[in-house]
């Protein structure tokens, strides 16, 4: 009977795989073993795989110092039956044993998104994207610079973006190496650039929309602007989970969704008074002006707008009523607090 013995890393990543046509197979630190382990906690002749007469596979302890255990179990195993695919701790080494007739899962079809992500890993693609990225940032800076243009402005204006970029590029690669997932650094870099470019494009589209819009569209645009941030976050997580950690599709989708939800929750904690102040300062919406050629909507007629102005008066009367009833409630709560007004420090009337 054939067996396959795998030496695993801390995250069950396969470090070495050996196939044997027949048992017994000996495991230990000594060089005369079939499977040579380099772990100092392993004895020279530590364990053996044997087959019993009825064809079952067993793992035997050869009187070792540290014994054999199952992961997360304390009990030492002297002689234990091996089920195909089971993991044992031999000393501190993780060993997985398969029978040769172990059935493997069917192949996973290569998805288009994965092909794309791998294509991004080609060096020439990374270099090309990098150049496009720099050009776009240059153009962006040049368009918005009033006064003298300096090359250093390109970095100065986008310092935050550049720092985020560098931190993500280095940080994720570092994690990927740490977990020995053999992440594709170039693909990761290209992906970052693509995502940042995509974000810039969305932002420009949003600016054009704000330029064209009127107050009726502002709430929608504000929502879209927020949604844009979450979309980028989702896409980014979704991609790096594959590139750097090879997480399967379904799992990386829900992990990304959870991250986005948590982020959304943090952004929408109950409002405090300071936040309300900040919000109210944004009046009525940040104006955006672009060349007149980018005005794509047909302006309204003066009469139509005047009707809208007239409708503003009843709306304000309503807002006033609302503010008054809110104010009355606040007054009530103040009264119950027995707040004594201290007017003594009020200065005498001066005009």
């Amino acid at each position, binding site marked *: 009977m054939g067996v396959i013995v795998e030496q695993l890393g801390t995250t069950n990543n396969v470090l070495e795989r050996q196939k044997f046509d027949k048992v017994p197979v000996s495991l230990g630190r000594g060089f005369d073993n079939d499977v040579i382990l380099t772990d100092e906690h392993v004895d020279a002749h530590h364990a053996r795989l044997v087959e019993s007469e009825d064809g079952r596979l067993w793992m035997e302890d050869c009187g070792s110092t540290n014994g054999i255990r199952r992961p997360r179990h304390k009990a030492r195993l002297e002689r234990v039956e091996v089920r195909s695919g089971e993991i044992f701790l031999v000393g501190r080494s993780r060993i997985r044993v398969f029978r040769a007739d172990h059935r493997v899962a069917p192949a996973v079809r290569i998805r288009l998104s994965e092909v794309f992500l791998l294509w991004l890993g080609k060096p020439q693609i990374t270099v090309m994207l990098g150049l496009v990225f720099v050009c776009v940032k240059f153009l962006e800076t040049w*368009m918005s610079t*009033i006064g003298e243009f300096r090359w250093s402005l390109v970095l100065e204006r986008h310092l935050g973006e550049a720092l985020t970029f560098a931190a993500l590029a280095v940080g994720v690669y570092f994690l990927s190496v740490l977990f020995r997932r053999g992440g594709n650094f170039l693909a990761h870099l290209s992906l970052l650039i693509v995502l940042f470019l995509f974000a810039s494009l969305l932002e420009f589209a949003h600016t054009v929309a704000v330029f064209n819009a009127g107050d009726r569209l502002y709430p929608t645009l504000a929502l879209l602007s927020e949604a844009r941030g979450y979309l980028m976050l989702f896409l980014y997580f979704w991609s790096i989970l594959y590139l750097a950690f090879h997480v399967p599709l379904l799992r990386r989708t829900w992990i990304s969704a959870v991250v986005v939800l948590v982020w959304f929750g943090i952004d929408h904690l109950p409002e405090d008074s300071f936040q309300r102040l900040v919000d109210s300062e944004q009046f009525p919406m940040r104006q955006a*002006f672009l060349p007149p050629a980018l005005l794509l909507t047909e302006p309204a007629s003066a009469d*139509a707008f005047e009707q809208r102005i007239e409708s503003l008066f009843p709306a304000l009367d309503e807002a006033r009523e609302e503010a008054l009833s809110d104010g009355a409630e606040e007054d009530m709560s103040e009264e119950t607090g027995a707040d004594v007004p201290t007017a003594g420090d009020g200065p005498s009337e001066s005009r």
Partner: protein
Amino acid sequence: MRRGFSVVAALLALLSVTKPSAQPAEHSALFEALKPGLFTVEVVDRVSNNKNAQGSAFLIDERGTMATNYHVVSEFVHHPERYTLRWRDSTGETGGLAVVGLDVVHDLALVRRDVPDPDDASHAFELAQGDPVMGSTVLALGNPFDIGISIVPGTYNGLLDNQFRKNIHFTGALNPGMSGGPAVDQDGRVIGINVAGAGNSVSFLVPVSNLRTLADEVDEVSGEPENNEQDRLADMRERAVERIKAHQGRMIDQLLAGDWSLESFGPLMIPREIQTWITCSGGGREPDEETPWRESHSNCTLNDRIFLSRTLDTGPLEIIFGWYSSDRLNEFQFAKVFEQNRFMPYNRTSDDDVTEFECREQWVRLDTIDDLPTKTSYCLRAYLDYPGLYDVLFIGRVLMNDSEAIHIHYTLAGVGRDDALRFHRHMLGALEWE
């Protein structure tokens, strides 16, 4: 220490306006005669018994009615449950006061002693009938900084041109605390009521005719059954809304009937000094290295503010035109420059006085601006305590090809709906494209 300094400053200011021709002996005789009719008005906190505001007042009839400024008693009018009103005379005697009439627009209030004094008839001030002669000596009386009744001689300089309300321009130093005191001619007749000092001996008086109108009005309504004080004050506040609305309506009327002849301003023809009480200034800037665009402004204002409370005033008006152009900036850069402009309301408010601005904002074609797409913002806020009064903030922004742009901006404060819309139509209709 600071108080001491301001006293010295007040005395110095007093000395500097005392003309050598003035006759001190005569003034002192007049002062002695008028002094019993002069009072200090105090707004006192009910709980702590501390003074919240202080001003001057003077007797005008035998029933113990005194005239003072609305801004002296405004805290009491708004919060009668929190404050009481008290008079104090030069001998230190005190007593309670009730508010019997308000003219918020002209910053006047009539208050009455709870218990009239039999001597009130003889102590009451006489109100002058005609206007004084330009340059004649006027004596302002009051209690500056609560340091004692004082007399400030100065000169009558006619009515102010740059105000719609037409206060008297008095050259003499009015100091805080003198508000509400009388300004008398050399015969001791009241020609105005001290209202504000603008520093450097430039001060303003409310013409006495406004006081006479208010006193007549109070006499007419005094036959009505007496409600409790809080209800009466609420009524007065309600009437104040109507007065302000009517006053601002008259202002808009005169404005619309004014001189709308147009002057050239870049590609636009705009009105300038529509009325004598509108003050216009203009300015511009040529392009330079750091700011490579041309910019000019026309800024017309009516800086005539009606005091409503310590945190709220209303009434001023502002009309601003801006014109920008550049040969060196591309259209993206130029749009960025244009985007930086910020527009503010012109009157003072706090969160407790008004609602937040609500806006209608849209691209609109205006025929008086050559049918060019104009990003038009019409923003409105309502006064919480004065139903039917609004502040308007209007901005029209036109971005043309070849890096040229104009903006049209005006603010109105404390106007009713109809007046606001009337002004808006007239304003936009009056413009012309060159």
